[in-house]
């Protein structure tokens, strides 16, 4: 399959979904660990919760649809050499990141996954594939709504959010 091509059958879609959810779970957990290492426990807890949700989603994929890791080469996934849609890039992090910023990054990740599955629905050559992709669209839409709801609970950061009273860089 070419990098820009969307999954064209049930097996390939399941392989993609399995990769998306597992990579998201792993990335959220990595980010949670980074935050805990910096004593930013509030954001660490948020990422850990998101990791738990994604891991549960991945487990459901296996249980309900028999999705499993496949020997597909990395470049054969629809996102090619880019990160899978639901993974927040490591480079976006900051040790003083606030919950609102973390959730904004998570929202963007969830929306990328939603857009991916929506594209599959729109390009699906068979009803079977379309139905499965629609199911994933609904699940991702729930995730998007959940993160949006969480976002409402946290204020936007102050302009000096990254001020550190004990900065690593000496003035």
């Amino acid at each position, binding site marked *: 399959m070419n990098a820009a091509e969307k999954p064209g059958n049930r097996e390939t879609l399941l392989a993609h979904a399995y990769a998306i959810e597992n990579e998201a779970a*792993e990335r959220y957990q*990595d*980010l949670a*660990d*980074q*935050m*805990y*290492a*910096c004593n930013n426990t509030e954001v660490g807890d948020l990422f850990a919760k998101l990791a738990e949700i994604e891991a549960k989603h991945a487990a459901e994929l296996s249980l309900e649809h028999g999705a499993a*890791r*496949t*020997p597909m*080469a*990395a*470049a054969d996934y629809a996102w*090619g*050499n*880019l*990160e899978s849609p639901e993974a927040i*890039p*490591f*480079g*976006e*992090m*900051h*040790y003083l*990141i606030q919950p609102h910023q973390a959730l904004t990054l998570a929202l963007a990740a969830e929306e990328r996954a939603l857009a991916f599955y929506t594209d599959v629905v729109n390009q699906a050559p068979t009803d079977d594939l379309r139905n499965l992709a629609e199911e994933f669209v609904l699940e991702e839409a729930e995730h998007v709504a959940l993160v949006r709801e969480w976002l409402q609970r946290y204020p936007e950061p102050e302009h000096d959010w990254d001020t550190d009273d004990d900065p*690593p*860089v*000496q*003035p």
Partner: protein
Amino acid sequence: MNAETACALTARDYKSDLKPVWCPGCGDFSILMAITMAMADVGRPPEEVAVISGIGCSSRVPAYTSCYGFHGVHGRALPLATGLKLSRPDLLVIAAGGDGDGYSIGGNHFMHACRRNVDLTYIVMDNQVYGMTKGQPSPTTPPEWDSALVPGGTGLSPFHPLVIALAAGANFVARTFSGDAKGTAQTIVEAINHPGFSLIEILSPCVTFRPEEREWAKQVHPASVDATEDRARAARRVLTDDGFNTGILYRGNRAPYQPAFKPDDAAKVDFEAEFLP
């Protein structure tokens, strides 16, 4: 790699239980991911791989893999890796570290490792600063970089590792960007599979001491030409480029150095016995 091997090993199999203590946003997180992805792709089990490093933020990488590892003395990753590969040619040996460790403290070893062309892969996570010791300029720091520790900048011409590697005899030279983890993983695989000494220079932003390096994500671009086998042409290209073109820049065809003698198994057994209780 066949499908059976691909199913057997994943990147996760090469990660240790230790959690990295790098600053959030550091490029080294992505590079660690790329290294583990590459190992899974190559398909050698962790016990057949050794990751060797010196000192520095990026030199912590052996601890974060499940392979054999050696966190050595500052600047000495390459002599350690060279010795290991010569005595245990069956192992896949990867040396890793930063620009300070590799090009300054280990600069002489770097040149001679290129010259010797032993079959190993050297991954340099170049952030153009000494991060672990709080932001001193390194050999690759631009001369004008102004900071509290170097007011007005060093004014010194930066070290040009890729040109030096080519001049010294490295057999494979590439540059990648940490933000492109999958591309970096592919390049590492190619470096491992290419015989001889392979250098992969990975631009890896230090978001704490060089926050402006976050902009590298917008500056990197794939090299517009394919890798060459012509050392002089490759050197001209890297001397005249903007420092942000990525990809495999040179593939040489020098035969790797292998000692004429075979390591004496009996001597190895005696040596190992010294370490056994």
